[in-house]
């Protein structure tokens, strides 16, 4: 609740009155878009135990959808041919670009296409009981293959440079500070909505079945539930949520490239959730915000060493804080009414397996 107040009321007020500048608003808008994706990942990995290494792909699909729409409407309402097509000598809009001229269709397609892709993959994988690591490797290969496909020029999606240079969405100028604020608020609201929806889901019977699948899939099957159906459902849900995050992300960034959806990006998203604490929705949000803030800080303070930091973060999270930051602070801070400090520190140490 407090988070909602801060995000939706205080920060926008601060921006309006000049306390918080536009760059920060934009940054936080992007962080919140990432947080949306992280919630989806938490649903499918933290609660159901299915590691998916292609969430960045779904994120990118949603992002590309909205980018295609914006590229077509660069100079306002009538649709014009995107620049890179003119450079490549293409004179007519390809068939698969046509539906993106209308905004409602874009919204729909941006969510449906990743959903269908996820459904096909999940259906064929889960129905033949491909589990755990093998499934993760398949998703990694899919992300890699899709990344390579999007890099090609003949797929007419902008190639290595991606889609960029769009300034107008629905007639609103994207560099206008009011529009930026509006986008931020939209993203924050969406994130809160997704969070509330996920909480409801998790506390419902469906959520309990998901957790049961994570803990012991065999027993779930024995008790008559179709584990495949649940897994497919939650995988598709996570994909759609990731695509939603992508659609909110791209207008605030102004560019989408294939690099945003390669294997490394997907694994980074997993690390957000791992750092924050999987199995707890708040942890996912915390992790996404935290790691990205660290990224912004590290790339300006220690340029060139981000990959070292990220790598060490991976290892540290897995080895030392397996329950994530949320789990870490569950028994922290020590309070005088509870046990003695030493006992609490000992608990903490045991938690983090430092000793």
């Amino acid at each position, binding site marked *: 609740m407090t988070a909602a107040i801060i995000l939706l009321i205080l920060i926008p007020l601060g921006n309006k009155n000049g306390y918080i500048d536009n760059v920060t608003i934009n940054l936080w808008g992007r962080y919140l878009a990432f947080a949306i994706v992280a919630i989806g990942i938490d649903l499918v990995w933290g609660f159901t135990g299915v*590691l998916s290494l292609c969430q960045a792909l779904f994120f990118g699909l949603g992002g590309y959808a909205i980018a295609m729409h914006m590229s077509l409407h660069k100079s306002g309402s009538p649709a014009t041919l995107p620049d890179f097509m003119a450079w490549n000598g293409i004179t007519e809009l390809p068939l698969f670009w046509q539906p993106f001229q209308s905004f409602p269709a874009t919204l729909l397609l941006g969510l449906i296409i990743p959903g269908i892709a996820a459904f096909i*993959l999940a259906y*064929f*994988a889960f*129905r*033949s*009981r*491909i*589990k*755990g*690591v*093998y499934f*993760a*490797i*398949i998703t*990694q*290969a*899919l992300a*890699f*293959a899709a990344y*390579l*496909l999007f*890099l*090609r020029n003949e797929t007419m999606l902008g190639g290595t440079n991606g889609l960029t240079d769009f300034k107008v969405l629905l007639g609103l100028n994207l560099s206008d500070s009011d529009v930026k604020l509006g986008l931020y608020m939209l993203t924050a609201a969406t994130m809160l909505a997704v969070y509330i929806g996920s909480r409801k889901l998790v506390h419902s019977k469906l959520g309990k079945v998901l957790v049961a699948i994570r803990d*012991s*899939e*065999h*027993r779930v099957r024995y008790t008559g539930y179709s584990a495949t159906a649940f897994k497919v459902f939650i995988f598709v849900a996570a994909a759609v949520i990731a695509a939603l995050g992508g659609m909110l992300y791209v207008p605030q960034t102004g560019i989408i490239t294939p690099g945003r959806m390669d*294997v490394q990006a997907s*694994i980074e998203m*997993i*690390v957000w959730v*791992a750092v924050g604490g999987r199995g707890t929705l708040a942890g996912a949000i915390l992790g996404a915000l935290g790691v990205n803030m660290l990224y912004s800080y590290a790339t300006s303070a220690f340029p060139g*060493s981000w*990959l*070292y930091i*990220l*790598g*060490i*973060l*991976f*290892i540290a*999270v*897995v*080895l030392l804080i*397996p329950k994530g930051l949320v789990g870490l602070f569950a028994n922290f801070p020590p309070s005088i009414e509870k046990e003695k400090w030493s006992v609490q520190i000992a608990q903490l140490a045991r938690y983090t*397996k430092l000793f």
Partner: protein
Amino acid sequence: MHTLRIKLFLGLLLAGLTCFGANDSGRIFRKLAGNHPDSVASAIENMVNDGSPEYYYILNALLESSLYTHPRIVENAGLVTALLDKNQQLKLYSCFPGGKELHIASFIASDLTEIKIPRKTRNLIQPVAAKIQLYHWNPEKKKLAMKSIAASGTIDDLALLQKVLANETDPNVIKAGTDAINQLSLLLPDAADRIKAIDGLQENNSPDALSILSAHAQIEQDPTVLKHIQQAVDSIESSNRRTEIAQNLFTGLSLGSVLILMALGLAIIYGLMGIINMAHGEFMMIGAYTTFIVQGIFIDLVPPAFFNYYFWVAMPCSFVIAGLFGILIETLIIRHLYNKPLESLLATWGVSLILIQLARTIFGDLTAVKAPSFATGGLELSSQLTLPYNRLFIMGLTIAVIIIIQLLLSKTTLGLKIRAVTQNRNMSACLGVPTGRINRYAFFLGTGIAGLAGWAITLVGNVVPNMGQTFIVDSFLVVVTGGVGKLLGTVFSGLGMGFLTKIFEPFFQAVYGKVIILILVILFLQVKPTGLFPAKGRSED
């Protein structure tokens, strides 16, 4: 008295005759040895006008700036040819008649004085250069000369080519000569001769045969000959297609072998310890960089004659150093993650990021490893199909590694313990098998093999920090399809992936081929979800 005077006179006459007559060559050589531009020019003019092939050796030497005089040589007015042999040593050869190696005690290169061609004389030689080079000592130059005469010559040159070919022994040059003769014969007036020439070109099937025939088809009038040309072209094209397929299959085989090497290590590690090693590609990179460093050491410290041995020295180095890094990672990180594949996936991904960045910081983004000399060139099966030695070597290495690993696992005690721990870790521990140590050995083995793969891949690719990334996704797919139960599964699926990738390449681009292979893998997993040869034993949920 009387007879003495007659003998003296006859002797002087004889001397005078030899001075003037048959010893033209002596005069020419003295003019050359004088090294004065005018006398050299006049000597060259004499040789060219004379036209006899015996002078061509000297003319070739002059064209190559390899004609010198040496003060201690007596014959031919001290003229010698000096050439570098394949070990970069300077050797002396006689120049008239040419080609005989000369040995001089305590020979120093600075004793030689070069005979330079005056610039204006080059223009004199140029028109007949091709003919002169027909007599060059270097077979490559001979072949080139033949080609150029065939391309720009006339029917009159046919006789010259045939004369040169009659004394030729080198089979490559004979082939090139036959092609040249056939190419020129296409200009003959008689249709039957032309048909014979076409057949000859088709039989030899040199790389240019197709273009020569097609070019001639444009100017040919006779319909029967045209039909003949068409048949020849068709047959050449179909044989080219066949060799292309064979070449593709071969490259697929070699690609598959690299994948097998990588996947072997991965399968051993996953099968034994239940961890996924995302950093496996980086161990391959470590092996490759070790080879690079060893090469650097050899360049700096070892005399050039032994340079090629760096490759063999690098082999155990790559294996050991990659293995040591593996043990380091195992002790620090992997040890805590047994049987937790998803966690190990993330942790080893972090390790891979760090290793790549380390390599980038230390070595920069682009380095090059020079292949040792035995690995350049290839085995020529036919004129179009060459099996490069380096790829053959990699395949041989893979076979050797597979056999060694199989023997290790099935015949040695260590192999027995590894198999035991793979099947049932707890029971093996109860029976006294030191599981911790076995883990370390197996990890050393797995990463060492990856290092070997890196060592081998320096023959075919560049050494860059992220070279491991190109292989890791495919290697994992190989492990997934092959299953971790038996080595054979990895071998089959590795070969299959290599073949499929290369088979799809001519039809689709490499990228679409990857997508298709992925779809095929998913479909295959429908039937066999744990791979070809899944691990046996009790699986806990």
